[in-house]
Each structure stands twice: as C-alpha cells, then as structure tokens.
C-alpha cells in the first residue's frame, strides 16, 4: 500500500522502478568516477521531482555494516526547540545514543510526545524555562515523529542514524558526508513525504554506491513527494497572547 497517495494518484510501480534505477545508475557512475584514498566523500544534491526545485530536509545516511558502525559513532547532545508552536529544526539528524533536549520557547505550555517505535516518550505539559536540563536519549535507530498533545499540527522528526555518516540537505538541496570508508555501501535517502516502496522504513529508499578515497561520490536525486498530509495549523495558532 506504499503507493497510496493522499491526492489519490497511484503511480505505476514499473515506471517508478525504472525512474529509480535510472537515477541509481547515474549515482553509481558518478561514485565510481570519484574514488578517493583515505576517506571518501559523498556530495548530495536533491530536488523535487515535480517542481524541479531544491529539496531541503532530505536525510541521507550511508549504511555501514555492523562491524564498521562502532568506528563511526558520534554521541552528542542536540536540541529541538519549540518556537511559534513549531518544532525547530523540523528535521534533526542524530546518531544513535545521542540525547535531545526539548526546550519551550513559547509562552504557552507544550506536551511533547512520540509513539514512534524507535522511541516512545513524552514530556508532559511544561512551559518556557522548564525541562531545560532534560535530555531524552535515543538508543534505537529509526525515525521518531514528534507531536504536541496540545497542538495537533505540530510535527517534527528526529532521524536516529546508526552512525555519524548521515546528514540532511540544506535549503539549496545539497549536503556533504565526509569520512566514508572506501567500499560499496547502501545509501538510504529519507524524506517525510518521499514516495517509497520500502517495507522497512516508510518514506525511504535505498541506493547502493561505491565509495573510493580521494574522489568524492555524487548523489543527484529527484524525489517524488506525497501531498503534505499533516494537520493544518489552526488559523489563530500564530498568536502569542491568550486574548
């Protein structure tokens, strides 16, 4: 049922595979041409298939085999702020074992929760200045969807990567991952609204790339996006005062 879209357009699976295969071939070719010596580099450029514009907040993770994962671990503390009843940043990329802090910059209370299997947790109603010192640990890799029990439209994502070899595209749709060991690895591309056939992780697709030292690998991709099906923000949600 992964092909089901909000807008009802059912993309034919063969066409999709063909598209993805074409893209993958290009990426592979590019990667092969950019093999380096010590650490390989992946240069990413993602655009919206429909509009052709740069696509931000696309997470790209190089999936290393288990024996290589321990070397590429970066445990750190992060912060997802709540500003103007939105999660900022909207998409965060962390590696497993890291902790995230959820401060409240609004002058009303928020109730942060997640029912995602990667980490079910909640921070019951708290206001500005509270829970500043609380850090939620994220041990399971996967996508954690953040919600607010008060504001249904508030939606944030924490992408918990297996290693530190993960990043997200910026406003220009570009990103770079460095320090990739040479070799042929799978690369996962994830976006909250990306159409995908993946059973393992929704909205993600896998590419296999070959990384060599010296020459950076390139990943150019146009993603087909679902319609944004998040709840609409209430008309008066932007107000700061309760009157």
């Amino acid at each position: 049922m992964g092909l089901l879209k909000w807008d009802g357009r059912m993309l034919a699976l063969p066409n999709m595979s063909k598209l993805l295969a074409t893209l993958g071939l290009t990426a592979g070719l590019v990667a092969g041409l950019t093999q380096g010596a010590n650490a390989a580099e992946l240069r990413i450029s993602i655009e919206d298939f429909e509009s052709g514009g740069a696509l931000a907040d696309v997470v790209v993770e190089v999936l290393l085999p288990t024996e290589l994962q321990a070397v590429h671990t970066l445990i750190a503390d992060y912060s997802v702020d709540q500003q103007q009843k939105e999660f900022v940043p909207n998409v965060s990329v962390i590696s497993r074992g890291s902790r995230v802090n959820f401060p409240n910059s609004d002058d009303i209370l928020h109730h942060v929760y997640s029912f995602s299997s990667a980490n079910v947790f909640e921070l019951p109603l708290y206001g500005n200045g509270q829970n500043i010192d609380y850090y939620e640990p994220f041990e399971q890799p996967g996508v954690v969807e953040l919600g607010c029990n008060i504001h249904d439209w508030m939606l944030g994502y924490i992408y918990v990567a297996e290693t530190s070899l993960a990043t997200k595209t910026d406003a220009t749709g570009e990103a770079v991952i460095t320090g990739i060991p040479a070799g042929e690895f799978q690369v996962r591309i994830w976006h909250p609204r990306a159409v995908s056939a993946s059973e393992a992780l929704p909205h993600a697709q896998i590419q296999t790339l070959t990384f060599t030292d010296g020459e950076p690998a390139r990943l150019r991709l146009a993603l087909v996006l679902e319609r944004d099906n998040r709840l609409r923000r209430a008309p008066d949600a932007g107000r700061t005062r309760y009157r």
Partner: protein
Amino acid sequence: MKPEPALVTSLFTFRSFRTRLLVFLLALLLPVLLGIYAFVNRENNTYTTDTINSYLELGADVFDFTREEHKNTLLTITSTMTRDWGFRNAFGTGDPFTIIDAADNILMRSLGAADMMLIASMDGEVIIDTKTQGYERLEGEWLALMEAAAKSDEGIGDAVITVDGVPYQITVIPLFLPTPVAWIFGGFPLDNRFADTVKQSIVSDVSIVEYHLGEVGLENGVADVRVIASTLTEQDQFLLTAQLQQTGMTYVDEGLNVEEQNSSAATRRIQLTEGEYGTLMRPLYGQSGDELQIVAVIQKSYNENMENVQAFQRVLLQFYLVVLAVSLLAVILLARSVTRPLVDLARRVRRIESGDFGQAVQVSGRDEIGELASSVNNMARGLAEKEKVRDLLGKVVSQEIAEELLSKTIELGGEEKVVTVLFADIKGFTSLCENTAPEAVLTLLNSYLSEITSVIERNQGVVDKYTGDSVMALFGAPLTRGNDAQNAVRTALAMQQAMVALNQRNRAAGMAEMEAGIGVHTGLVVAGNLGSQNRLNYTVIGDSVNLSARLEGLTRKYHVDNIVSETTRHSATNFVYRELDLVRVAGKREPVRIYEAIGEEGTVAEARLQELATFARALQAYRARLWDEAQALFDELSHALPEEKRAVSLYSIYLERIEELRARRLPPDWDAVFTFDKK
C-alpha cells in the same frame, strides 16, 4: 324504457305555482351548489396532495439533514477521540484489548450517538472492531470508503454500510499520532431509534427498507423487500412490504443515479390500515441496478390532512342547508304573495260568473297582479253596469228586443220581413179619464197594460211601444217563429178573456170597467233601429202597421172586440172567424176583407156557431141586394141579443145600412164595399 308522453307532460304540469317555483329553484340552485362543492372538493384534494408532497419532500430533506447532523456528531466524536491522550496512549501500546476497551469507553461516553467503532491501520489492516465482524483486512465497502477518504482533502469519508444486516451510517477519520497512523471508523445504525428521531422532526412516518434484487427480481422488476426499521405499526409494515414488493422500486426502473433520483423522486400513494399514505423514497445504500439497495421511505397520511378538508366540507354542507332553507322559505313566501291574490281573484271571477258583481278584490301593489286585480274590478263594474242596462232595457223595451240590441252591434237601418202587427186600445178611454182622478187612471192603466203585456209575452209577442192607452205588439220581429199570425190571433182572444177577468176585479174594487179594441194584420214591414245615432228605437214601419192600426180603429165602428185582416186569417187557420165586411180604409184603394176572430176551433159553443151561420146568410143576402131577406135575418140576430145591446151592435149597423140602401138607387156594379173616408 321511454316514458309515456302523458307522464312527461304530467311531470311538468304543476298543480300549484309554489311547486313550480320550488322545482325551478331547485333545478337552478342544486347544480350550482353541487358544482361549487365539486370544485371546492377538487381544489382541496389538489391542495392536500400538494401539502402532502411538500411535507414528504421536506421530510426527505430533514431525513438527509438529520443523517448529516448525526454524521457530523459522529465525526466530532471520533475526531475528539483521536485527540484524547488516554486513547493515544492506549493506541500507542499497540495492544488490541486495550484499544478496544478504549474504543468502547468512547462509545459509552457518546451517549448513543455512536454505536460502533472500527480501527484499521493506514494500509487497511483491521486493528479492532467493536462489532467483531471478523475482518482481518478491510474489504468491499469498507475498503472503498477508506480509499475515498484517502483521496479527499480532509481525509474524511462517509457511507452507509450494512453491519449485521442493519444499515449503518459510517464515517471515517485518520488518527494522527502525530502523523496519520490509523483509520478510525465510527457508525450509528439507521434503526427504529433513528426513524423515531426523524419522525419527531418531520411528523411523518419513516421506514428503512431493504431491496434484494436477485436475478429473478431484476428480470421481473420484483424485489425481495424487507423493512429494517420503521415508525409504522407491524401491520402497516406488512402492508408496506407487500405493496413495495408488487410495485418495485420506481427509481431503480428509471435507471437514474442518486442525484437524479432525489430530484425526480415521485410521490406515490400506498394504502395502509388507516388510509392512503403519500410515499416518497430516498436512496441510502446501493446504486441503481445493485443487488442490494436500501432506501428511506417517508410517509404521510392523507387522512390527517383530510380532516381539515372534511371539517370544511361539513361547514360547506351546513351552509348549503341554510341557503336551501332560506331560498325555499323565500320562494314559499314569494309564491304565496303571488298565489294569494290570484286565489282571491279566481274566487272573485267565479262570483262574477255566477252574477255577483259586488265585493271588489283588495290587492295592493302596482305589479302585474295589482293590474290584473284592478282590471277584474273594472270588468266586474262594467259587467254590473251592462247587466243593469240589460235589466233596464228589458223594462223599457221588450226582453227580446233588448237581447237583440245587446247581442248585435247597434246600427241604424233594418230589414224587410213579414210581421203580424197587433194594436190594442181601450175604447172610450178619454171619457173614462174625464170622470176619474188622474192617480186612479194611472193605476187602472198600469194594471191594464201589465195584464195585456203579460198576455202578449206569454204568446211570444213583443211589445213594440205603448202610446198612452194603446199597445203595439209585434209577432215575427225581431225573431220569426213560423206561427207568428197564429200567436197574434191567440193573443187577441186571450186579451179579451183577460179583459173579462180584469173587469171582474175592477168591478169588485169599485172601479170603472174597460173594453179593449184589437186590430191584427200580417204584412211586409221594415224592421230595424229607427231614430238618430244617439237615440234609437227598434220598431217596424210600413203600410201593414197602418192597416193594423186602422183595423183596431174599426172595432168601434163594427162594435166588435177584434178585427183580423184577411192575410192574417189565411196564416192563422185553426180559428173560427166571422167575416165582418169588405172595406176600403182611408188612404187605401184596395178593399180589405175584415174578420172577427171568435175562438179556437172546437171551443166555440153551438149557439154561437148558429148565430155565425145566420150572420153569414144575412151578409150574403145583403151583398146580393136582397134587402128584405137580409133585413129579416139581421133582425132575427138582433133580437137574439140582450135588450141593451140591440141599439149598438154589428147587426144594427147592417140594418141601418139596408134602410139607407133601399132609399138609394144602386149602380149596377155595386160591390158592397164600405168605404171609410176618415182615418
């Protein structure tokens, strides 16, 4: 059968004016009243049908609206549920038993607004189902509903789906956690409770009816019909089922889609226990041609609405009765106002017919009847006057002349006819008058004239005029009777007898005795109205009249009571006559043979007849100039008379003549005619 003409005539022949008026009034009024009644009835029926139709269409709209409201309530409930932290937590556990308890909890809190709940994952895997229908994955209508919701902007959908054979209004909404993670289906049954709710708003009966169109059904247009829910009684549900089964689904046959069905929904009439119900259908489930279809049936009784109409009809009928009663009364009064004076007039006319001209009818008003009444009064007055005139005329002139005058247009002129004229006179009246008081004379004269007149009239004579003591009577005018001369002679004889009786009475009363002279002659006269335009007289004129008067006069000369001319004697043969003489009266050249009527044949005494025979011989001798013989015979006759009459009698006259003729020298052509020079 053709009615007899007599019957038809009798049908339209009325004994009274009132009946006629009543029949005509009813003939006019009843069709009008019936026409109005029929018109009002038709308008009322149209109005009722329109009212019922608008009720039903409104009812169907309210039904849809109520369903919509319920649907929104359901959405609100399920939507709120997805925001419920407890439910979110329960769902977050992923434990179906916890989730189903949470769902039941919500249903309980909905106070019956929601009856069932089904939760499926975003790709259609059933997580919980409070109705435990046994689905593992969504299928059929459920799947279709989910897909329809997924396509919609809001991610919301609704449909009617049967659950355990009962149509449910189902809504679906995604569960956000915070991204959509599941579909939450909520539903309430379109059952009796729902039908009751709708009925409270629309005051019409609501039924939810299921059609099973099998293969056979589609071919024959006959459906297997089942009432799922209804506000009707069981009896009525049974009737509804039976009739829907017979008639089939109207809109299915038309092959329209749902929208078209709604717009073209035709009201039809279905007979239930308490009368006819206007019936309107709204499709709830299934498309045209589907095997299973469910419709909402909205029904409204015509009877309820007809109650007002019937009340109006009752009022109308009462009004009709009043109108009829007032009209009948008015007609009776009108008829009476016409017939009463008419009856009075009829009675009056009958009285006039019988000769009673008095008592004028009193009718007020200037209308036709008033005119008629015054005409009748005038007519009566006219008749009374005419009768008076006739009476008076009968007194002034004879009855028969009066009739003659009244019966014909009176004009001057007359006709020639043979008439017997009789003159009667009192001999020596002048000397009688000299010795008697005038009053006594008048009394005497009146008694004489009355006597004479009654004798004349008794013998069919007509008194022409009275001139002093003389009477002129006509026989044969104005009416010819055939035996007029005979009547005249008989009158003359009767007069003489009457005079005897009269004289006896007069003698007893000490009054003077009278002697009448009578002359009778028959001849051609002119009879007619004589006089001026303004005053005229029915009479006869001519020589015969004069001769008759002369003959009357001669009675004095011959000392006889009557003298009858030869013409009369020939016309009246059955009498005994005595020839008196042959005379030439003054102014007449032709001699006339004159007679004395003695009596009717067979009534004259033998001695008298002997005397007459002797007289005849004497007259013969006289005419033959045998003076001695004639004288001897006349002497003999004269001596037979009483002493006092010998000097003045018929015989003495002839004796005197013989004396005189002996002395004369007679010419050879002596004709024995005696000439009277004086009138």
